[in-house]
């Protein structure tokens, strides 16, 4: 079978085929979400989906649900959350105590620099690509920056990024002039996932530019 076997990985093919045969719990389609018009067809509920991508992903419930009360800043301003999760565990100094306390702690200089870089990136993305509702997930699927307020976007992006198995971007039209663009990106801290709403799907050249800028943004200063 020299004409075939050297060209593919039999165990991978079998694994992918078995995933397809595995029954998936029927998805419940939600009613129209706030912010979308009637052409929106709904999200798959996180509780019912036995994803073929088998994501050990945290659900959107882990995102602070009521950020308006936690932050004095207006809702329209950028609200990065848990920027410290961008730093992988192995680079945290050994003497640092585990952050179990829910009380806010002052941001370290490096965190501040990261926040600043993300703000700059966010503004650049919004200005050049008409991007809005920007969010970034870390290598574990946790939200490290979010201005969308839609936990389900995070869930979708997480699953699309896992299913893509590569570095290519994925876009899903969710309204007449709204496309959810999901861009997985390999950085020095592992794979992060950028999600944003854009009026039209982004051409490959723009995606490549965004990836390059995001890598710079996420790299240690």
């Amino acid at each position, binding site marked *: *079978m020299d*004409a*075939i*076997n050297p*060209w*593919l*990985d*039999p165990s*991978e*093919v*079998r694994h*992918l*085929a*078995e*995933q*397809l*045969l595995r*029954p*998936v*719990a*029927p*998805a419940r389609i939600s009613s129209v979400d706030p912010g979308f018009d009637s*052409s929106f*067809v709904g999200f*798959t509920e996180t509780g019912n*989906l*036995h*994803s*073929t*991508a088998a994501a050990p992903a945290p659900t959107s419930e882990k995102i602070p649900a009521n950020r308006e009360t936690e932050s004095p800043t207006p809702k329209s301003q950028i609200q990065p959350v848990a920027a410290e999760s961008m730093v992988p565990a192995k680079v945290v100094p050994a003497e640092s105590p585990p952050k179990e306390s829910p009380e806010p702690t002052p941001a370290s200089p490096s965190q501040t620099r990261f926040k600043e870089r993300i703000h700059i990136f966010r503004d650049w993305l919004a200005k050049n690509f008409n991007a809005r509702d920007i969010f970034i997930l870390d290598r574990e699927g946790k939200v490290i920056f979010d201005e969308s307020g839609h936990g389900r976007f995070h869930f979708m992006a997480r*699953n*699309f990024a896992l*299913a*893509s*198995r590569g570095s290519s971007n*994925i*876009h*899903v*039209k*969710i309204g007449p002039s709204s*496309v959810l663009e999901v861009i997985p990106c390999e950085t020095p801290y592992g794979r992060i996932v950028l999600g944003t709403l854009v009026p*039209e*799907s982004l051409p490959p050249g723009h995606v490549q530019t965004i990836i390059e800028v995001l890598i710079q943004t996420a790299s240690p200063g």
Partner: protein
Amino acid sequence: MISIAISSQKGGVGKTTLAINLAHAFARAGHNTLLVDTDPQGSVGLSLTRQSRLLPGFYDFLADPGIPMERLIVPTRLETFSLVAAGQASDYEASDGSSGSHLARIRTFLRNASSRNYDICLMDTAAGLFGVTNDIIAASDALVIPQQAEPLGIRSVPKLLIGLNRLRIINPRLNVLGVCLTLLQRDLAESTEAASALRELLPEEMLFKTFVPRDDIFVRASAKGLPVGVLEGSEGAQIVFDSIRSEIESKLARARRQQSFQAQ
């Protein structure tokens, strides 16, 4: 109504032949069957009706969902067999490749077909998993994958499976009925070896037991604009598609049993 997409990663694998003859087999078995040509090339229409280049069809509905289904559905001499051509708007179909652009309208199309008491809606798609084909699979109940028994075709299988796993996130209820080997040439070592390789690669239930052989009768049927089942001397070919139909019915029945078991 059960909607079944017939899709493949590669072109030229006998997708339209399978779609036409499978639809004919369902219709002969008494199922009210609608065959929809969703390939902008319009091969189903070109195979079965001389007026296909004038008929409104599937892509016209995507462009204007206000078009009544009655204008799209073309009856045939077999009462239980109707078809919808690709239509005229397919000439201008230039999908940007993004998934979801047509999903809502395809679902509306299927709801409209279901309300007209069709039992089966078979959708012959364009090759490749992108654009409209993606949305058709995302809206369908089930999927059949024709796969030509030749080495290059088999090498494309991983890409196809990755794409389908991605689509199952959008459509978790998609029942992947399996891969159906087509254009098998028993007198050609490369073809039979490719078939054997696929049998070794895939789980048994993922591969249809019945395969479609390469046969001159398909060319003759295409020349006459007919399903092979209506040609003289086509009994062998008819058995092939009846057998595939029977396998599909068994797979659908098994899926229904699993679903009702899970619901309990």
